[in-house]
Structures are given as structure tokens and as C-alpha cells.
């Protein structure tokens, strides 16, 4: 017992340094943006703003285009996520459990979209959409954002379905469940947390997607992030962008907290084959 008492946990200085650097890299920019959002006067060379206040919050949130963009973003993201789940989850199950000709090539093609420089691909798609009169329309943006979710919504659920023990499904068949019942009562609940993680990732990813939304949606469709970029590009007032950033940060923070509680970190790891 005495030897046990003598063993003191060594301080891992290297680990602490890395953790600190990582924290600065992640939290630093957030802090700066956060500070700007509550700043009224901040002139060089001061390290701390001269005057804090909520003036720009009132100005930003008072603009009708901000609220329109927020509602549009939420609508778009919900539609895209639901559509993506409806299309991708059955496809993921097929990829995980069935063998059909061209399975591997099809499966890999979902990754291929992400292997090209995204902007070049978008321009090519925009050219096609122009012919189809989809430019500047809600469904045009839905389509382009749908493509962006495919990878998460196929690859992670495939891993989730593959991780479900086949013997569990067989045991359910054995006690009298039809294949459909097995899927609802056994496969889906087993894969559920990981699939929820995938749905969440694509919801958040779609909400913040800008390139596609801008290229296909402009000028009729302005999502929240597109609006934010235009503020940052066109207005010399930094605070408009900063306030919107903070506003946009809230839903994703809530979503991640919710995910952590409901899903647990393990589900994300499993989704990536961990």
C-alpha cells in the first residue's frame, strides 16, 4: 500500500502545452469575433475596445433581411436534411447489407464529389441549373446542398449499419420477426445514435453552407451565412458581421450540446469506424 501512495501522477507538460495551443487556436478567433459583436468603439492601437454596447445588435436584428434570411436558412436546412435522410438512409442500408453490381464504384462515387475542387464543380453545376431555370430558386439551392450532405449521410450510416451484429438480426428473425420488423425494432435502434450523429452533422453543415447557396441561390435566395458574407464584404462596419456570427454560433452550439447529451461521443467515433 505504501508504494501505491508514493506514486504521484506525473505532470504531462507537453500535453498541457498542446492543449493550451489548441485552445488558443480554437477559442482565440471566437473570442475576437465575440468581442467585436459587443463593441461600439475599438480603435488601433488599443488592445481592449474603448466602448462596449449593444447598439449594433439592435441595428442588426432590426433589419428585416436578417430575419428573412434566418427563416429561409432554417427552412432550407430542414428540407435538405429530411430529403437527404429519406434518400441516403435506405441507400446506406443497401450499401451496408446487400451486394449488387457496381456497388463499390457507386459507393466510391459519393466520395468523388468531394475529391474535386468544390468551386469548379459548383460552377459546372450552375451552368446546368441555368439551363433548367433553377438558378435563384429555393429548390435549386436544396438540390445543390443535398449533394453536399451525401457523403456524411451515406458513409456514416453505412458504417453504423455494418456495425450492427448480424446475429442480433437473425435472433429477431428466429423469434418470429419479419425482415421489416427486424429493421425497425433491432437494426435501426442499434444504429440509431450514430445515424442521429450523421443527421446532426449534415444539419449543421447545411446550415453553414455558403458556396453553393451563394452561387446557385443568388440573387433571389439569401441564406444567413450568405447574408453574413455580404455584410462583411460590402459594409465597412465590422460589427454587423460579428453580430451575425455570434447569432449563427448559438444554434450550432445548442445542437452540439444536445448531441453530446443524447448521442454520446462514442457514436461519432463508431460512425467513423472507431
Amino acid at each position, binding site marked *: 500500500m505504501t508504494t501505491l501512495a508514493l506514486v504521484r501522477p506525473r505532470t504531462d507538460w507537453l500535453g498541457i502545452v498542446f492543449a493550451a495551443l489548441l485552445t488558443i487556436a480554437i477559442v482565440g478567433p471566437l473570442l475576437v469575433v465575440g468581442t467585436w459583436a459587443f463593441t461600439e468603439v475599438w480603435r488601433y492601437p488599443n488592445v481592449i475596445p474603448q466602448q462596449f454596447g449593444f447598439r449594433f445588435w439592435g441595428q442588426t436584428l432590426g433589419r428585416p433581411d436578417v430575419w428573412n434570411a434566418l427563416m429561409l436558412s432554417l427552412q432550407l436546412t430542414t428540407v435538405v436534411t429530411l430529403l437527404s435522410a429519406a434518400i441516403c438512409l435506405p441507400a446506406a442500408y443497401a450499401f451496408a447489407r446487400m451486394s449488387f453490381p457496381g456497388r463499390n464504384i457507386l459507393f466510391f462515387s459519393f466520395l468523388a464529389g468531394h475529391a474535386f475542387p468544390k468551386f469548379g464543380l459548383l460552377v459546372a453545376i450552375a451552368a446546368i441549373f441555368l439551363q433548367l431555370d433553377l438558378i435563384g430558386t429555393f429548390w435549386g439551392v436544396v438540390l445543390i446542398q443535398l449533394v453536399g450532405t451525401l457523403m456524411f449521410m451515406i458513409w456514416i450510416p453505412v458504417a453504423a449499419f455494418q456495425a450492427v451484429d448480424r*446475429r442480433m438480426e*437473425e435472433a*429477431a428473425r428466429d*423469434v418470429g420477426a419479419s425482415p421489416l420488423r427486424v429493421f425497425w425494432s433491432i437494426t435501426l435502434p442499434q444504429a440509431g445514435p450514430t445515424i442521429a450523429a450523421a443527421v446532426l452533422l449534415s444539419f449543421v453543415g447545411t446550415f453553414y453552407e455558403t458556396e453553393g447557396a451563394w452561387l446557385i441561390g443568388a440573387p433571389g435566395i439569401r441564406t444567413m451565412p450568405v447574408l453574413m458574407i455580404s455584410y462583411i464584404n460590402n459594409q465597412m462596419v465590422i460589427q454587423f458581421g460579428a453580430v451575425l456570427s455570434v447569432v449563427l454560433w448559438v444554434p450550432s452550439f445548442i445542437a452540439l450540446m444536445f448531441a453530446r447529451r443524447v448521442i454520446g461521443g462514442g457514436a461519432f467515433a463508431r460512425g467513423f469506424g472507431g
Partner: protein
Amino acid sequence: MSVLHIVEVTKTFPGGTNAVDSFSLDVADGELVCLLGPSGSGKSTLLRMVGGFEQPTGGRITIDGEDVTHLPPERRPTGMVFQSHALWTHMNVFKNLAFGLKLRHMPANLIKEKVEAVLELVGLAGYGDRMTTQLSGGQQQRVALARSLVLEPKILLLDEPFASLDQHLRERLREEVRDIQQRLKITTLFVTHGQDEALSMADRIVVMANGKTEQIDRPDVVYRNPQTPFVAGFIGTMNLIEGEVQGGHFVRADFTVPLPIADGPATLAIRPESLDLAASDKPGASVHRVTDYGTHGLVDLDLADGTRLKSMVAHPDLFRAGQGIELLPRAVAAYRNNQQIYRSSP
């Protein structure tokens, strides 16, 4: 009260190998039959065909005269216990057991009654609220057994159910399962690669190799009178000696035994407990190593050409490594062309 008939069932996997090759077996009402064989012998594939998880490429399977060969698992009166127990980890013990009953639209109070009764049967009364992941390996396997039993299947199928448990637990569980099986008089097909399990539990043993039956017999008969060299070598310890028969004697190196069969190659089989030893000055066999197990001893010995044999002796202290030895077999069997052609009366 159910009988199982397996008639010339064949399973050919894509690629042409016969996992099960024209296999036939009748299991009587209330009988426990063990399918025993090394991995790759086709025993699990056969069991999975009875359960409906694999489709035979030929032959028929009937239960109480009803042809179930092409029925899906959910429509077969069979209950399977898997090696990995395959409990549903997102449900508690009660829900695991109630799932099949719910599918049969049984009223809730009757479900509760039946689940509690079966938990009692497997010695887990009061465990209904536990999550399956909170149970020990032995408890999980008991729940898996209960999950099958609660549906009162006509045929119980056990696929190496104790393979993932430690030795001590395995021995206890196999006694329990045997007790439950006899109390319920449920017709059971049991797959194992452990001969202890088969010898201690089975009414009859089917020894399988390469998808075919080597022998079907009571456990004591399989042990005492193996019909093929494979069975002789697979069940228990056996000295199998390849040699020649010349003029009524089996010959291998300096070792000869009278063997009244026609001249030609033969395999001689002697159990270690049927091979007596005597000290000898003559050149020939010699002691390689002596192991004292307390209750008995085991002597490893070499023939002149290096063939290693084992003999079980009552007094291992009489033998020393390097010592010359004379072999005195009391009971032998001989095999030729994969069949028993001679057996000395014991």
C-alpha cells in the same frame, strides 16, 4: 413432442465446395443430439439450415412431418441460441424475452407471467429490469436460452452456446442446460467442437468431418468403438499407428501385434488406457517422458523410428525417461480404407 428429420441435405457454397454433403439425421422426440466436429466440418452450417438462416441446395428438412426446408426463420418452430448470445443491447432482459411473445400478440399480463416463469427456470428470477450489458457472460447466455425457451419451440438449436465462457462456467452451464432440456423434454440439436460437452450432454453424437457423417452413436459407443480413424483420433486420446499387416501381424518399426486380417497397409488404434507397459532390455520402444497427474500417470514413448505413443499407467514412478520398454496392448482396433476392419473383444 416433436421429431426432426434431415434428409440428404446438401449445401454447396458459391465456388463449389460442399459445406454439407448429403447429410441425413433423424432426431427423436425429446432427444438431445450433438453435432460434433472440427471447425469447417459443416456442423454450424447444418444447424443454420435447420434454423432457416441458410438455404440447402438439396434435400429436405421436416419437423413433425411438415416440410420446413424453404420456410424463413420467422415461420419455423425452431428456437436458436447463438454462440455470441446475440441479445438486443438496446432492450432490457424483460423486453428481450417479451419481444417474440409480443409479435404473437399475446396479452401483456400473460407475457409477464411467461417471462417471469422462464427467468425462474434459468435461475435469473428478478433480473427483468437489468440491461443485458450489465450481466455476466454466463447470465447473458442464460437470457439467450430463456429467449428461445419462452416461445416453446418444437426444436431447440444451440450453436456452440458455451464457447465464449470460461471452463468452470461452461461445465456448470452445460449441466443446467441438460437439466432444463430433460425437464422440458425438448427436442434439441446442439453444435459443439468440444468433445467433453458432447460426451456429457448428448443422447447421441453425430461426428462430422468435411460435411459428412463419420459416425452416429451413443457417447459411450462413439468413445469405445469409433468406426473410422477420424473418429478414433477426434474423440479422446488415441494412438493411431500407420503400418503393414504381414502374415497375421501388424508391424511398425520393432513393434508387432497379432492382427488376424489380410495383408496390406492398416492403421492400428490403441487407447492410452489400453496400452500396458513392461520394462525390457530388448531394443525398440523407449520412454520419452513421464507425467504424474496424481490419480494416474501418462508415459510418452517412442518406437524405434521415432513414432510417439502415449500410455496411461497406474504407477508412473515405475518408469524413467530413456528406459527401454515393451508394449502390451490389451485392446486394439484396425482401420483400412477409412473403415474399421478389426476390433479385438475388450
